[in-house]
């Protein structure tokens, strides 16, 4: 009997191997490019899978932050730790923004775009604008971003998935529990810990469906891509990918330096995280596997990973910052606006703020945050949103991977170096 269960388990574990997951992705790409009807039919399955995956993310985020902050405060060396966290986040975001800016300025994706490409872009914009005349979302400025951090009603923030507000509240609870220092607060932290483990367990089960789920998600995403607009904006897309690869390689080296073992091992430990990020284009969906990969495989301090990963998904999104910085340079080049010192600093600061703001908004809504960069530059953000949305299915996966992997690298920098 026990033997039978073990055999079953072995069969099921095949589903977890990266080869099977990868072939799921490839199958998705093939279906997406060749069979539009089938892609549309499997789309709901993919959506259900993603919902299932995301259902457990918010509780994991909340429990991870509360328990790690609470335990951190009871140990006493919290301040130096928080200082390091802030430094790593700020430095990382600034570096990402600078990389985006310089690569945009050097490779000039928006200069000398030929007429046929401009025609394709113009058509895309015209269709999008004429069909959606009443603008549903309003652009946000810095103040409205700050407003979103503080929830008026924490339960509403949770049900509506206002992640930044939830983070803020979890931090408050974590600090409060840490400062109480009584036996009952310890018990509470233990309860939260076991809840956290339970949610991770559920995610572990859901992971068995990953190859199939990714196939459905990717097939649908690929089939939605308009080939003409991709070709028209190919140069911009290549720059996004080039920057993403530079960053991903940089992160892998950082992780390798901070943890023990070979370079290959450090890469393989986070393979699942990267595959989930690429396949789902959702940073949140990849939180659990990032936590597992970091603390179980790479032996990074569990407490640090539990705190930094959920926080960093919203507060340390390198990929989004690079995205907005390059896009801002691209748009300024399309309109022939000279790029001086003033514009450079606006773009650097603006794209960091926009990146932070975008991570709090799910889906394409995040793209509208580019108005935080373009409005001060006096550039039309509507055009930018439409064009970026058109190439989003191609660009989003790799940028999500940058967001997630950058966070893992930041975590290893904040954690004490493994000995």
């Amino acid at each position, binding site marked *: 009997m026990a033997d039978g269960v073990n055999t079953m388990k072995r069969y099921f574990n095949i589903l977890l191997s990266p080869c099977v997951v990868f072939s799921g992705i490839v199958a998705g790409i093939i279906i997406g490019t060749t069979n539009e009807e089938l892609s549309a039919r499997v789309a709901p399955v993919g959506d259900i899978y993603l919902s299932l995956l995301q259902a457990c993310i918010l509780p994991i985020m909340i429990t991870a932050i509360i328990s790690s902050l609470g335990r951190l405060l009871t140990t006493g060396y919290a301040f130096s730790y928080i200082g390091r966290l802030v430094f790593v986040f700020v430095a990382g975001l600034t570096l990402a923004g600078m990389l985006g800016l310089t690569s945009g300025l050097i490779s000039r994706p928006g200069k000398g775009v030929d007429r046929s490409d401009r*025609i394709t872009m113009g058509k895309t914009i015209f269709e999008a604008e004429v069909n959606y005349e009443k603008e549903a979302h309003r*652009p946000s400025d810095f103040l409205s971003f700050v407003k979103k951090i503080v929830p008026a009603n924490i339960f509403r923030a949770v049900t509506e998935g206002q992640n930044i507000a939830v983070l803020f509240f979890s931090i408050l609870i974590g600090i409060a529990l840490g400062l109480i220092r009584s036996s009952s607060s310890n018990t509470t932290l233990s309860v939260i810990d076991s809840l956290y483990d339970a949610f991770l367990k559920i995610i572990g089960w859901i992971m068995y469906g990953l190859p199939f789920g990714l196939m459905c998600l990717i097939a649908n995403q690929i089939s939605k891509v308009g080939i003409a607009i991709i070709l028209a904006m190919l140069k911009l897309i290549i720059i996004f990918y080039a920057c993403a690869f530079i960053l991903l390689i940089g992160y892998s080296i950082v992780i390798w330096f901070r943890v023990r073992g070979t370079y290959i091992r450090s890469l393989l430990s986070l393979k699942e995280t990267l595959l989930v990020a690429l396949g789902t284009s959702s940073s949140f969906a990849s939180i659990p596997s990032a936590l597992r990969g970091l603390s179980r495989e790479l032996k990074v301090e569990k407490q640090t990973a539990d705190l930094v990963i959920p926080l960093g998904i919203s507060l340390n999104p390198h990929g989004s910052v690079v995205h907005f910085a390059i896009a801002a340079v691209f748009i300024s080049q399309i309109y022939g606006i000279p790029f001086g010192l003033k514009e450079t600093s606006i773009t650097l600061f603006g794209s960091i703020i926009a990146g932070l703001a975008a991570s709090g908004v799910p889906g394409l809504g995040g793209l509208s945050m580019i108005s935080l960069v373009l409005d001060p530059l006096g550039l039309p953000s509507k055009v930018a949103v439409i064009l970026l949305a058109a190439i989003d299915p191609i660009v989003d996966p790799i940028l999500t991977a940058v967001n997630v992997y950058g966070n893992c690298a930041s975590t290893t920098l904040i954690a004490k170096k493994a000995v």
Partner: protein
Amino acid sequence: MKEILILIQTAIIILLFATHAVAGNIAPDIEKILKKRKITVAMHCEDTPPFFMRSKRGFFYGFDVELAQDIARRMGVELEFNRSASSFDEVVELIVRRKADVAISMLSRTLSRAKLVSFTDSYIVLHRALLINRIILAKQKMEYEGLLRILNNSGIKIGVIEGTSYVDFAKQDFPKALILLYKDWSSVIKDVLEGKITAVFYDDLEIKEFNRKNPDSALYLQTVIMKDKKDPLSLAVHWEDAHLLSWLNLYLQTIREDGTYDRLFKKYIESEQWQTE
């Protein structure tokens, strides 16, 4: 009894003759057209697809052209175009000076024109639309909200084409803005692209057509169709021609019922079917 029958018969015969005599006494405005055996239609001199234009093979056609042909056919007369007017206001003038019987020239009805001529019911309702320079728009930070409210401002320059109804519409919709008159379409487009003016104000059909011909312009110019601001097109006749006016109104009603209108609307307005001709 027999006498009575004969009396009734005579009465009927007299009555029949009487009605026939009445039928011979036609309203003078219609009679004039029937007598000269042709109806003269005033139409703007420049081709304006999809209302009146020439195909690649030189074939003259369009929504207004087919309407004019159908009117002539149903009236039983020949058709003649007078295309000497180089602005839409001049088309109205042709009617006033009796150089044409009816204006079929995608003519917007405005109150100032209605002082000079009589308009029929509308046969197509266009919408007022704008092409706005995106950079000026972004600099004004008015991309999303209250766009039309902010366009009505003293610092804003709006370009319209001379002699069109949009001169009146612009004064109505944007009384505070500076309205600049342009001779033709290409010069007003040039200025809005260069940012010398904020926006061009015209009908949605023409602006959509411009976008179709110049798809890359959407990068630089934002199209805004004012769904709540209508621009009804009507036929126009001389104010004295009251009966012709009522005949044309009945005609417009009839073609809506017998499917002619639907066919024309599908061919020229709803689809781009006409472009293949």
